[in-house]
């Protein structure tokens, strides 16, 4: 198989683009795709500081690598979820990535907080799905770190497969409010929020994994133990079967939605947000989602003590 650009021996085939690339041309293709996404969606400029949320996985580390290589001003943010050996390995690889490249990494460890808010502990105490608690905690700490650090932009490593799976889930359940917000750039709806961007929204998981491998990025290959049976994986499997039969379907599904469907759902701005009485972050009610969850942990722990 020959590289589409230079005709040398190819090392990766991208059916969705009806193309194959050698190592240098794939690296060029991947970086150019990300750069075009940033420019066309007006995600951020070279003079803006970008906080990159990194998990130790292929997508977020590939994203950080690309942004650094393209000359953007970045710092990393790692949120330690306290999920046993999985979190330990993730943190170790993230720290090693940053140290090797001389990059600044901020670390917030949930299991080292005063209340021990590690995800397994919170999920067990509240009887919520771990992924639900994890999402709430990530949103809060990402927002908080970006605000406290004075970053105008927060970038995450969500890729095309993530976004297409999310779209499928939103369409299956006609989640109108979620469809209205599903965009690669989310502008702040409150002065204490920052712009949130997803520069990898046009690149597939195969592309980000290939990029990470070719760049020698030592990422966590293991999956989060809580992801087994996750609904998102079911959606991804369905989309991969469709993609296998009709290459390019995933990209068309997402980009056609963004170009033609999403504007129809984005009727207007969110309702007016106030500020959380406990932490001061934006909230629809008296408390934000994060503080409601933390309060629930406290309540249930008190009940458990009272009944023991």
């Amino acid at each position, binding site marked *: *198989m020959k590289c589409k650009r230079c005709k040398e021996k*190819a*090392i*990766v*085939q991208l*059916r*969705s683009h009806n193309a*194959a690339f050698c190592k240098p041309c794939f690296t060029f293709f991947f970086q150019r795709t990300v750069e075009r996404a940033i420019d066309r969606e007006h995600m951020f400029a070279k003079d803006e500081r970008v906080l990159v949320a990194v998990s130790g*996985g*292929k*997508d977020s580390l590939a994203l950080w690598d690309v942004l650094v290589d393209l000359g953007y001003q970045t710092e990393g943010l790692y949120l330690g979820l306290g999920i046993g050996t999985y979190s330990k390995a993730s943190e170790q690889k993230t720290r090693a990535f940053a140290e090797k490249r001389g990059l600044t990494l901020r670390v917030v460890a949930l299991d080292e907080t005063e209340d021990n808010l590690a995800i397994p502990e919170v999920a067990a105490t509240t009887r919520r799905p771990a*992924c*639900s608690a*994890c*999402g709430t905690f*990530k949103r809060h700490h990402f927002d908080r770190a970006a605000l406290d650090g004075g970053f105008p932009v927060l970038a*995450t490593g*969500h890729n095309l*497969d*993530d976004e297409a799976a999310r779209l499928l889930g939103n369409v299956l359940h006609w989640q109108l409010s979620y469809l209205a917000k599903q965009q690669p750039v989310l502008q702040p709806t409150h002065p204490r929020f920052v712009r949130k961007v997803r520069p990898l929204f046009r690149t*597939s*998981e*195969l592309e*980000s*994994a*290939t990029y990470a*491998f*070719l760049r020698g990025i030592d990422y966590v*290959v*293991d*999956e*989060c133990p*809580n*992801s087994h049976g*996750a609904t*998102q*994986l079911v959606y*991804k499997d369905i989309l*991969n*079967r469709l*993609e*296998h039969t009709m290459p390019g379907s995933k990209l068309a599904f997402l980009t056609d939605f963004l170009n033609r469907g999403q504007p129809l759902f984005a009727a207007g701005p969110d309702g007016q947000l106030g500020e959380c009485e406990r932490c001061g972050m934006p909230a629809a009610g008296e408390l934000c989602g994060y503080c409601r969850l933390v309060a629930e942990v406290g309540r249930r722990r008190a009940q458990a003590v009272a009944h023991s």
Partner: protein
Amino acid sequence: MQIRLEPQGKQITVSGRKRVGDLVQSLGILAGTVMVIRGDELLTDDEFVDDTDSIELRAVISGGVA
């Protein structure tokens, strides 16, 4: 040939010279959902592997809620 499936950490043995695309398909894996790695190189579907090779099939799909 020796094949390591990641992230499962599973090791299997397959005999004979095979086209990479056919090998992946014969294991019930959808093309494009794994990287086929031999040493420090990636293999495309049209290449061949045989009994002397040791390869890794590394899944590229990650899950959960971000």
